[in-house]
């Protein structure tokens, strides 16, 4: 029978911040909260415009090839895991993205191409964050 649940908040019974979800193979479970991305951001242009995002409040120029992304809601520590990719249209290449986790409130993204003068310009940058919210 099809079913639909309407709620604003889902909380674990045994531990509020821990809910198990059955995986696609119908045998293994995974932790819902741990598996959810805690932030994503799509950043474009020389002004580091935050064109779309979730739990992403602002961007600031971090110097050549670097931009700092601030979270709306902070992480609980600095051991979160970030990933993403940059697209450098001017150089005609797509570069992997480096991330330096320095703070629970923000982190710095680095274009690993190393040969671009500005991560903004004609580039797009996509990034996401996994870890624990404060």
């Amino acid at each position, binding site marked *: 029978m*099809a*079913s*639909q*649940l*309407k*709620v*604003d908040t*889902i909380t674990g*019974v*045994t531990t509020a911040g821990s809910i198990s*979800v*059955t*995986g*696609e*193979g119908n*045998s*293994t479970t*995974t*932790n*819902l909260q*741990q*598996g*959810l*991305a805690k932030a994503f951001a799509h950043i474009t242009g020389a002004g580091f415009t935050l064109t779309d995002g979730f739990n992403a409040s602002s961007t600031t120029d971090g110097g050549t*090839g*670097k931009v700092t992304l601030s979270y709306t809601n902070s992480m609980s*520590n600095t*051991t*979160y*895991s*970030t*990933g*993403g*990719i940059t697209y450098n249209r001017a150089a005609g290449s797509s570069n*992997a*993205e*480096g*991330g*330096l*986790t320095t703070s629970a409130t923000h982190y*710095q993204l*680095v*274009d*690993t*191409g*190393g040969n671009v003068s500005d991560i903004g310009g004609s580039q797009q940058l996509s990034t*996401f964050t*996994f*870890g*624990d919210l404060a």
Partner: protein
Amino acid sequence: MASELRVNTLKDASGNNSIATSFVAGGSAKAWCPLVYSSGTPTAADSLNVASFTDTQTGDAYINYTSSTASTNCSCAGSNISTSSDLGVLNKTDTTARARTIIRNSSNSLVDSDRNFQLHGDLA
């Protein structure tokens, strides 16, 4: 009391922001970790579904899962944890039980450098 809820769709209390539970399971990361090097074998500063690491050579290691994936057709991502602009991370699935992670510098040399790993796909 432990409980189990079986539903097809989640919505907020106003009936908006509908999402099928298949997207909740399918869209969640099945593994992630920051790998930190202080000696030859990396350690996880934090993690989901990562049991251990197998160091194979400088800059090259296997990430062993706690729960295996259904196939090797999973999507790997990551980044280096550094402000250096000459480090390239290569993350790939190896078997359903592990992924492989490599970092090379601009001289194409393998280096033990901190990095991130994320995995999306189906669990077994």
